[in-house]
């Protein structure tokens, strides 16, 4: 499909319109990749354009999602990446909500098209964590409050450990049940071509792995990665020209909780619940547990998948570990969760996790997930990301029926 229009007069400024996803792409996720950030963005965009059947000239606007500049080693890293991400000579904007960017960038892409300002919007997420030395963890030193927290020399894992302990305490959950998530996701990832840490492990492996900040152990955590992912979001009349099976974005929501995370009871992510409420309302979903067929909640740690399932209303508070134990969240279960292998299995390049969240959900609903395709028939799915100091929830609901 070729649209020969000068880019500015190509912007039509319609009225409000629905939004469909017609293509996605991602690079491999590995601890260190040789390609630069721009090259990674390019590879992901190329794949997405191929699947959608359009060229970069058709793209009207570009949204970049990329997490802390400190990882790649640039100030204003959005500007640096724009050439590789197709942003040259286009309206280009970078959004950033910490770890929630993986699902927030598509939400930003959604309003570029839904507002009528663009008909075709490209969403790109890129991350190069390996640039930071001695270890990407070091860059997380700077997320803390400089006066109240940093002098105590905190490590990022601390917040998760504190939250995990609280979650386990309030609902009386054993580490064995939480470890099941890590086992499931790492096994699921064996079917993902881009996976970094896919392997078959057991609950004992998790419980015996190196302690990092108890109760968190090494196999409870997703690794730092380099990678990029891309999505193409279009207006309905364009989707009709490109494909018979677009996947529609039916609901979006996002919420940010207070900076004072020590003043909150961490056992329940109310920011995810608020974001989900907003997205479900838009998507006309009243009973998520019944109406959602497949879910990709954010799983940087195994307990986080459970925590977020409860926040998304897919399980009652304290019930998520039971669903996991009963096999409900397996690929052949009633509520397949993280069929891609998630961050625990494929890798965690912060914002580029869009590849295993939003892109995966799209592929599942378009029946293109190959060996990872879930067993049941799917119509509606939800993907979610989390970020900051236990603050951000970003949720997107998709459906293959309009």
């Amino acid at each position, binding site marked *: 499909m070729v649209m020969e229009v000068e*880019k*500015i007069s190509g*912007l039509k*400024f319609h009225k*409000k319109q629905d939004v469909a996803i017609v293509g996605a792409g991602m690079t491999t996720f590995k601890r260190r990749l040789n390609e630069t950030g721009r090259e990674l963005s390019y590879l992901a965009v190329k794949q997405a354009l191929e699947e959608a059947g359009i060229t970069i000239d058709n793209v009207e606007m570009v949204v970049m999602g990329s997490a*802390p*500049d*400190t990882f790649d*080693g*640039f*100030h*204003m890293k*959005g*500007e*640096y*990446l*724009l*050439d590789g991400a197709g942003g*040259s*000579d*286009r*309206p*280009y*904007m*970078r*959004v*950033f*909500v*910490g770890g929630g960017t993986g699902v*927030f960038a598509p939400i*930003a892409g*959604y*309003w570029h098209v*839904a*507002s009528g*300002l663009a008909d075709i919007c490209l969403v790109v997420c890129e991350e190069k964590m390996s640039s930071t030395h001695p270890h990407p963890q070091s*860059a*997380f*030193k*700077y*997320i803390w*409050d*400089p006066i109240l927290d940093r002098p105590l020399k905190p490590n990022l894992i601390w917040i998760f450990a504190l939250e995990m302990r609280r979650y386990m305490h309030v609902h009386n959950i054993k580490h064995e049940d939480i470890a099941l998530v890590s086992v499931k996701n790492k096994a699921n990832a064996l079917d993902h071509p881009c996976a970094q840490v896919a392997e078959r492990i057991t609950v004992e492996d998790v419980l015996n792995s190196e302690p990092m900040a108890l109760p968190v152990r090494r196999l409870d955590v997703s690794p730092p990665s380099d990678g990029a992912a891309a999505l193409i979001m279009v207006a309905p009349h364009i989707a009709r020209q490109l494909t018979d099976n677009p996947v529609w974005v039916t609901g*979006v*929501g*996002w*919420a*940010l*909780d*207070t*900076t004072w995370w020590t003043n909150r009871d961490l056992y329940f992510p*109310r*920011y995810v619940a*608020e*974001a989900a409420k*907003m997205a479900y309302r838009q998507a006309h979903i009243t009973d998520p547990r019944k109406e959602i067929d497949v879910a990709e909640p954010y799983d940087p740690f195994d307990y986080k998948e459970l925590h977020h399932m409860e926040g998304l209303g897919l399980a009652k508070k304290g019930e998520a570990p039971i669903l996991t134990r009963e096999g409900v969240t397996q690929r052949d279960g009633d509520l397949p969760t993280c069929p891609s292998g998630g961050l625990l299995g494929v890798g965690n390049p912060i914002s580029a996790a869009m590849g295993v969240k939003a892109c995966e959900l799209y592929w599942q609903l378009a029946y293109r997930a190959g060996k990872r395709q879930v067993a049941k028939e799917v119509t509606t799915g939800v993907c979610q990301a989390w*970020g*900051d*100091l236990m*603050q951000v929830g970003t949720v997107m609901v998709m459906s293959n029926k309009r």
Partner: protein
Amino acid sequence: MVAVVGVGYSGFNSTTPDLSWKEIMYEAAVRAYTDAGINPRRDVDSFVTCAEDLYEGFAIFDEFVPDQLGAVVKPTCTVCADFLYGLATAYMQIRSGLADIAVVEAHSKASDIQTFGNVVKFAMDPIWLRNVGNAHPYYLAALEMFQYMVERCLSEEDVARVVVKNKNNALLNESAPYGANITLEDVMASPKLFDPMKKLEIAPLADGCVVFVLASDKVARELTDTPVWVKGVGWWSETYGYDTASFSAMYAYKAAKMAYRMAGITNPAKEVDFAEVDDRFAFKELQHIEALQLAGKFDSARLLAEGYFDRDGALPVNVSGGNLGVGNLLECTGGQKALEVVLQLRGEAGRRQLSDVETGVAQSWRYLPTHSGAVAVFGL
């Protein structure tokens, strides 16, 4: 249609030793909400903040935003760009039906940054540019200035006149810390820190915060009798490298074209009543005036000398004093410009009030070493 129903600001000062960035944000936000007559905890659907991590000194600045805006457990996001990009984001959110009332915020706490030159340098390409020589990165602007001066046959006086106009304009702006009654001779005598760029042609850093409340047209009409309409928004990125960019503010030209098209403006030089453009380096004002199609390619310097862009001229540019008078507000630069445009259109600009203005343009650049920028057109 989207309207501005409330504005608030804090500053602008050369330094703010008594208040943290949270406190200046709170101050500006409270003023904006009072102006709009809303309660952020109940009425606002979306909050957009514009910040770059390294300007703040945190790895994820988004974390430190919600409390002071009243956004706790509400939809809040960060756009890593100038205020006008945030304005465009809020505009799109309202038009998509995601929000009826949206808040945009940007601030600068430049006085907290001890090594500003190194922060700018950190944005430069590490392989090709960053460690070439030891010079302060402002030399990049000087390179562009020299090329632009040669291409447009500008003299040093042409550029110096921008400084004279803006700093004198700033004397009537109570919130501008760098106003001065300087003359052309003062500017010409100022040392050439980056030949041909002189010290007085570089806008010094300043602190401040601007908050806007936007609303969809139905809600705007309920909230206020004097909405200022956001007629058009545009934003554009040319490219990243200094080696491939146009050096003629093509980003501003295309962003303006997009905004004008949305606003239905076909002849900007006639239909725009006044403008606030980015002049963080004095020559940039001439470049941006041309890019915004407010004057022809070889006319801006001549018109400037004739007083066409003066406070009492035919098309006042930077009547607030511009960045040379108000200071370099980092990502809040677009906010200061939009603020001035809105105050002028409402008739609240005090001693600097222009008469009979209906359409104003605010434009900003994303500063060194980028070639991106945004434009917003406001009207009554």
